[in-house]
């Protein structure tokens, strides 16, 4: 197999990689906010349960969670394994990343001085207005660096999808490497992740700059 064919074949898998990446962010970013709010709930039962779930999700390997979501239904309920593996892969990724985002959001929300809530309260803002107009914009600015870290990790984590034989770039690269006994596909994969992350860095850097109009 020549280099061009190799690149072309792997390029086909990049669609799968990008699908995991963007779909995970699409679901995990908002889901993380819901989880963060449950985690901070004043109802003890809710916050305790949420905290336990978060700690399981962060305390076990994503690879295990991928396997659990993909094959668990089969072993537990004899349900057929999903034909399109993208579905369980994105579910597992979204849930796992939501747990991480939730902790980032929570620390961001807790870092906003209580005076901001009190000022909004005195002025007559409702709870919802206070959250969306006053608190959230400041939280987003503060958490940008941590979110960037997670997004960079996500780019690399997409390669874990090979454990459930979801066809993405790394899965294909591994297959070619085995059949051709060549190391080149791994180099290609490495370059791909590096370039992907360079783009992520650039975009997130722009976003951070855009929020730098105050302090």
């Amino acid at each position: 197999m020549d280099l061009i064919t190799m690149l072309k074949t792997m390029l086909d898998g990049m669609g799968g990689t990008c699908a995991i990446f963007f779909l995970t962010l699409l679901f995990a970013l908002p889901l993380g906010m819901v989880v963060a709010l449950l985690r901070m709930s004043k109802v003890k039962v809710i916050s305790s349960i949420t905290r336990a779930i978060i700690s399981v999700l962060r305390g076990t390997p994503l690879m295990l969670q991928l396997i659990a979501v993909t094959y668990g239904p089969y072993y537990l309920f004899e349900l057929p394994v999903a034909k399109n593996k993208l579905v369980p892969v994105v579910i597992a990724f979204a849930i796992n990343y939501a747990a991480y985002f939730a902790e980032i959001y929570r620390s961001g929300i807790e870092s906003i001085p209580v005076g901001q809530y009190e000022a909004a309260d005195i002025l007559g803002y409702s709870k919802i207005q206070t959250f969306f107009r006053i608190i959230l914009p400041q939280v987003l600015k503060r958490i940008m660096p941590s979110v960037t870290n997670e997004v960079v990790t996500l780019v690399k984590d997409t390669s874990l999808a090979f454990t459930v034989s979801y066809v993405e770039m790394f899965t294909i690269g591994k297959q070619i490497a085995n059949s051709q006994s060549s190391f080149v596909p791994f180099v290609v994969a490495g370059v791909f992740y590096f370039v992907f992350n360079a783009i992520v860095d650039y975009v997130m850097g722009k976003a951070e700059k855009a929020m730098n109009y105050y302090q």
Partner: protein
Amino acid sequence: MKKILEMNHVQKSFNDNTLHVLKDISMSVSEGEVVSIIGPSGSGKSTLLRCATLLTEMDGGELLYDGEYAAKNDADGRSVYSGKAELKKIRSIFGLVFQSFNLFPHYSVLKNLMDPQICVLGRSKEDAQAKAIELLGKMNLSDKAEAYPCQLSGGQQQRVAIARALAMDPQILFFDEPTSALDPELTGEVLKVIKKLAEEHMTMVIVTHEMAFARAVSDRVIFMDGGVIVEQGDPEDVFGAPKMERTKQFLKNYGQS
């Protein structure tokens, strides 16, 4: 004259009732009156303002604005607060200026003044902006409309905070040590603005450690210590000829008598 604020027998404790901070405080403020509250650190001045502005719930006692109950006593003398709708209405009666300004850092000065008017009072953008610009002029900050709070000095930030409170057309404005977070050379500009409001007969309650200022602007001075009102009256009487020993002692420490 009509009473804007009335507090009756206010009780407040912290730490599971082990720290009794407000012990049966009663006071009222009439329309157009400027009342200063002075007293040593820990005497409960901030707690009293926080109870008056619904930031802290009283344990016991009544709170009325404009004759309407924000909180009433039940049979056991515990405060029972009015419903959400009622409290929302009452919140629009007062404003509060914090020691630490608490401006919204992600909004420009102009937006800090406009956003609450639009979101809370439902004013049009044009009306809100006109009001904001008028108030910035009054605060000598016309050139700072587009600045962000972090670009302003403490004195400027506090004047923006005063303007933000005034933009909501409160009937009474509370100040909790408005100049305590400022460098000494910046307190003057803030006190000047408050003095101007006093001359316009804005109803105000001012907690302050600026004794000369309190003496100059107030219609009435309240001296608090240990969670009770020790003495109150005309500033010339309280500062010039205090009746109570504790008041004398306190003023002596401040070099005011």
